[in-house]
């Protein structure tokens, strides 16, 4: 079952730590978002494989934007 990885808060994508096809466990760090000069990690909501990454480094994201999809 596919699950979306959402941006927990607005900011800029500082780092993309995984690639499509990587397998992840719940609570693995997938992205680092930069907001107010703070680096805030975004963690995997579940176990699975990353089937899609919708943002790249430097993109501005809003809260609740879909950043990636885990199958």
């Amino acid at each position: 079952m596919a699950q979306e990885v959402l941006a927990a808060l607005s900011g800029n994508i500082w780092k993309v730590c995984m690639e499509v096809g990587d397998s992840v466990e719940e609570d693995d760090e997938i992205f680092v978002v930069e907001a107010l000069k703070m680096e805030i990690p975004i963690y995997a909501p579940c176990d699975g494989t990353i089937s899609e990454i919708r943002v790249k480094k430097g993109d501005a994201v809003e809260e609740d934007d879909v950043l990636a999809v885990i199958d």
Partner: protein
Amino acid sequence: MAVLEHMGIFAVTPGMVVMWLISLTLIYLAISKKYEPLLLLPIGFGILIANLPLTHLMEPGEGLFWRFYHYGIEWEVIPPLIFLGLGALTDFGPLLSQPRLIFLGAAAQAGVYITFFAATSFGFTLEEAATIGIIGGADGPTTIFLAAKLAPHLLGACAVAAYSYMALVPIIQPPVMRLLTTGNERRIRMKKGRKIGAREKLFFPIAASVVVILLVPASAPLISMFMLGNLFRESKVVERLTDAAQNSLMNIVTIFLGLSVGATMNAGNFLRTEVIFIFFLGLFAFMIGTATGVILAKIMNLFTSNKINPLIGGAGVSAVPMAARVVQRMGAEADKKNHLLMFAMGPNIAGVIGTVIAAGIFLTLLK
């Protein structure tokens, strides 16, 4: 002989040498530790130069630094211009989406008032006590603004205390916040507020200016410029002005602000026992402000089912965005998927306005 008399080296006093050491310490902290370098670096250098003898740089009507100080700070030009830039940098969204968080920004001003009363009991005059209390608002330009009007002889000490403690927010606040909250409270995840539309954000600076200035007219210089900067930002039609206010203008006035503040700090003004009390009371003000914000959040939780994470009360002292970062970090320590940063920006911004209002009230009562 005449040449020797005019050489500064023979006019150096021990007090000046102590001030050099203070200046070098601030320059060191600014460069090596990155403690508020944009301000502490020019302040530190200003102190050094102001404590070299026979320069006449602070000679009224004559000296270069005196002119910067007189026209920039005494004439109330620079702090409001900084506020123009801050307004252009501020997003009121987090505050508007949860207006109840305004109360946390107001509660943290208790630190200002409690310190005011504490300072009067230490023998400071009312004007001096107000200037010391406002350090607890954790807002540099407001502190300088008030000091210039009420107690210019304390301006340097109060400004340095305010900026140093702001840099030390990540060290000062967490113990207070930890002491007053339980692990479960720190883990509270807050419900998102509603989305704020562009129109609301556009009307806010206009409405807030009118309301605040009608209530506390003495706050007008700072509030009007703050809200004008924000109106630039939210109007989205004057990006050049927004950009100038946020960047070039702000940088230019920061240079003159720091240098002038440093230049007021001569040995005679600064090397007094009172100054130790100022630093002590300023720290006290920061801690009380942090505590009252957290405590009010806990009280509000007694009456609502939509719980507030009491950590965000600590962001009610202004120190934007350092205090909000502290909240985010402490929240994430308790629960790594909990993101309090944007919630904390609400009381943080309310705290800025609260401090300006507190300064306006002091001015109204004491001037």
